[in-house]
């Protein structure tokens, strides 16, 4: 009891600390001062009256949303004496692995730099600045020669690193038993099984299952749909983040999705946000970074060729180029096992005062990175709002898909969860695929790293991402991957090579996410 209380006060202290630095604090203060003019505020009961005013005017709700947002993003501190690295990643071997992976990436980046004799960053001459400003809305056309650039790494390179991950303290012995994990990931992390997945997550007290069964008849479904929309509109009217998050677990109606996501992510387009985006845009105009070319290359290789997203090519540049320069993103490294790469001003190697993070936001894009942004273009067509939503999605979820950590939503856990689900519930299939040299993870890894973007049809993808937001977890990616294999099990049992297995699973664009998940979660468990 005492421990809980002191934990709680620690959390409260942390959140208060964080919010004091936010613009919301300034706004609340201003509102409080302004409210003194109001007749209902009396000096004798000042505190209560102001609190009441906040409640009625909706400012309490905003504060609530901000607190909720902090709780969702920041991990709860385990122990007041825990060092900051533990917040990033508690397990030493994971930290070490992430460190050496980062070294490799940086080396690759630096060598490309040297080979092509391109500086990591340079200031643009005024003429070039003007030209870029004119072309800002159509950077997709007339791009520079990118033939010499290669992506710094691709998901399959990352997979190789994960496969070789080992816990030095763990010795599982050589004898094979039914406990032996047949998959590629060989680290002892705890993952959920289906009954656990179907139970509620720790935060909510109501016993809401992860996936609900749909109503069976058509007319009932229309009634359900209309009711669902009505409730959604009510949730939006209340402007309550927590309620929105609960609501979206059942999926979002198309027309309400953009607003719901913004509410859950606690994004409101304030003038200062738009100003901030414009500032980032100015940074892009003034300085050219090497990563810009990587971004260009990535967009040209992926989104430009995609049936759904090619239309939004120019928005992708506008978002990603600004993203690379956004130093506020550095904050998320407090709870990300990764660390931003450091670079030193020429000639001052090793001197901390001359160290800069490169790129400024500390995130080096890899092949397929732009696909995190692409689906969002279907929801937001204002660049600054699109930018804010993407940034928040990245620092809450996407970063976990390409850093090595023990977090349950981290890519390592997702891979293990996927393999375990498959081995537990479809052992015959798993064994068969393994025998023909087609380890399932080799096929499903790319789906999970990209959160299925570019593989599913957009409307289905958005329904999937609804659940990621609703449950504040990426585990559903692993479950869906397993469900896809389960769905195609009959065909997969007949293939005899990795290439053939890839072919069976090459086209996911016709799949419907919710029925697939339901069949897997409810019908597979005996």
């Amino acid at each position, binding site marked *: 009891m005492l421990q809980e209380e002191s934990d709680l006060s620690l959390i409260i202290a942390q959140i208060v600390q964080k919010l004091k630095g936010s613009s919301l604090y300034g706004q609340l203060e201003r509102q409080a001062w302004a409210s003194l003019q109001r007749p209902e505020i009396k000096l004798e009961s000042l505190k209560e009256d102001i609190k009441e005013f906040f409640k009625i005017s909706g400012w309490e709700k905003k504060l609530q949303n901000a607190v909720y947002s902090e709780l969702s993003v920041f991990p709860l501190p385990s122990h007041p004496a825990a060092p900051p690295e533990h917040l990033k990643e508690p397990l030493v071997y994971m930290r070490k692995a992430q460190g050496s992976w980062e070294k490799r990436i940086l080396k690759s980046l630096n060598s490309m730099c040297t080979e092509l004799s391109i500086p990591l960053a340079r200031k643009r001459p005024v003429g070039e600045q003007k030209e870029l400003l004119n072309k800002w*809305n*159509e950077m997709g056309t007339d791009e520079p020669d990118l033939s010499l650039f290669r992506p710094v790494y691709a998901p399959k390179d990352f997979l190789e690193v994960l496969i070789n991950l080992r816990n030095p303290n763990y010795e599982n012995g050589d004898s094979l038993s039914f406990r032996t994990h047949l998959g590629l990931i060989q680290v002892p992390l705890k993952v959920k099984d289906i009954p656990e997945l179907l139970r509620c997550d720790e935060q909510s007290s109501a016993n809401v299952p992860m996936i609900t069964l749909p109503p069976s008849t058509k007319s009932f479904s229309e009634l359900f749909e209309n009711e669902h929309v009505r409730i959604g509109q009510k949730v939006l009217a209340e402007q309550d983040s927590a309620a929105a998050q609960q609501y979206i677990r059942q999926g979002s109606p198309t*027309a309400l999705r953009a607003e719901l996501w913004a509410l859950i992510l606690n994004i409101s387009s304030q003038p200062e946000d738009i100003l901030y985006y414009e500032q980032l845009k100015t940074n892009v105009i003034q300085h050219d970074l090497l990563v810009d070319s990587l971004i260009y290359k990535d967009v040209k290789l992926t989104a430009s*060729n*995609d*049936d759904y997203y090619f*239309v939004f*090519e120019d*928005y992708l540049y506008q978002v990603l180029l600004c993203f690379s320069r956004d130093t506020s993103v550095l904050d998320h490294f407090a709870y990300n096992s990764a660390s931003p790469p450091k670079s030193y001003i020429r000639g001052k190697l090793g001197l901390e005062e001359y160290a800069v993070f490169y790129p400024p936001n500390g995130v080096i894009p890899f092949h397929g990175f732009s696909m995190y942004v692409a689906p969002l273009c279907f929801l937001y067509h204002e660049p600054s709002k699109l930018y804010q939503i993407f940034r928040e999605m990245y620092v809450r979820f996407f970063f976990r898909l390409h850093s090595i950590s023990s977090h349950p939503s981290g890519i390592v856990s997702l891979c293990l969860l996927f393999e375990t689900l498959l081995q537990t519930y479809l052992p015959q299939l798993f064994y068969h695929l393994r025998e023909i040299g087609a380890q399932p993870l080799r096929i499903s890894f790319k789906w999970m790293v990209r959160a299925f973007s570019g593989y599913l049809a957009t*409307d289905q993808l958005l329904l999937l991402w609804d659940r990621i937001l609703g449950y504040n977890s990426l585990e559903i990616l692993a479950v869906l991957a397993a469900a896809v294999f389960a769905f195609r099990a009959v065909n997969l049992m007949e293939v005899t090579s990795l290439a053939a297995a890839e072919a069976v699973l090459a086209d996911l664009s016709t799949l419907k996410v919710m029925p697939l998940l339901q069949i897997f979660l409810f019908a597979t468990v005996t």
Partner: protein
Amino acid sequence: MAGKVKWVTDIEKSVLINNFEKRGWVQVTENEDWNFYWMSVQTIRNVFSVETGYRLSDDQIVNHFPNHYELTRKDLMVKNIKRYRKELEKEGSPLAEKDENGKYLYLDFVPVTYMLPADYNLFVEEFRKSPSSTWIMKPCGKAQGKGIFLINKLSQIKKWSRDSKTSSFVSQSTKEAYVISLYINNPLLIGGRKFDLRLYVLVSTYRPLRCYMYKLGFCRFCTVKYTPSTSELDNMFVHLTNVAIQKHGEDYNHIHGGKWTVSNLRLYLESTRGREVTSKLFDEVHWIIVQSLKAVAPVMNNDKHCFECYGYDIIIDDKLKPWLIEVNASPSLTSSTANDRILKYNLINDTLNIAVPNGEIPDCKWNKSPPKEVLGNYEILYDEELAQGEGADRELRSRSGQSLGPRAGRLRDTGRTVLTTWK
């Protein structure tokens, strides 16, 4: 059992031929006894022309109506729609209602258009009313964007002014006829690019009108960013969405071909603009297609040997109002991407299933009412018989569960019943 269907075509496209072969039909030449002839528009002219006096027998079907040009020639389409509107106005129909500015409330779906050189003086009058407007010149008989150009100055069409002054009888037969329409310079842009909608509509009979809309239409995007700037009026890559033009652009992509499905469009519009305005837009699109068919129905030769699959081109402006640009009698069956090939193959497949029931030797006396199961990706757009027979309810359901939307609402307000909207 009757023999196999004998087919002929003068359009050598795989999407057609594969469909015929998969049904086990037999290819013959046009001089032999054939049952099904998929013709180009030149051939249909010959088949039905007065000189040849071709008589089709009961077991022969062709894929064009004899005078389809009433709908598919740009000038005749506009003429017929104008006539239709005037007729409705004369009989006092609520459909022909106008607003304070004299614009039709429900039938204003074709941009202001004039024939040249015949209407040259009328055009000049209109042009002078808003001299900063842009107009688009289109040759009446051409396709694929050929010969189209934009103008914003009267001097650019001087030669049509000269022609109009001379004796009309002589010059019109030598000079090519053009239409000039008000250019929609505020198209809805997505990702900063202009696009248009290509929808396929199958008409099995005009009287009673029975038409089907293919659910899998698509949007064609320009590869270059849209700008209404006058310096780019000559840049056809900015303004014309025809694939025949766009595919020569530098940035043309052969994987997606600059095409989006209509369902993508719907998803995007619903997500960014909301459900009501999106549903209203699509309702209006259906409405204008049906109205255009009703406009030409009285003048169409409703030959029972005929059916036709039209390619409708529609542009949406930034106020989410759809405009009918033109109707194509012979929509392209060339496939620019893999997805395209699949789409067109399925389009022909579903079309044949409706036009030639059960794939058997046709009897043109049949009632042209296919069972629901064979529709495939088509849905009933309008069925005049159903609408008149069992009243509004049936008609509502036949529109695939879509509500009649604002149209019915507005007309109910004027005191008439829902039934009359579709008569």
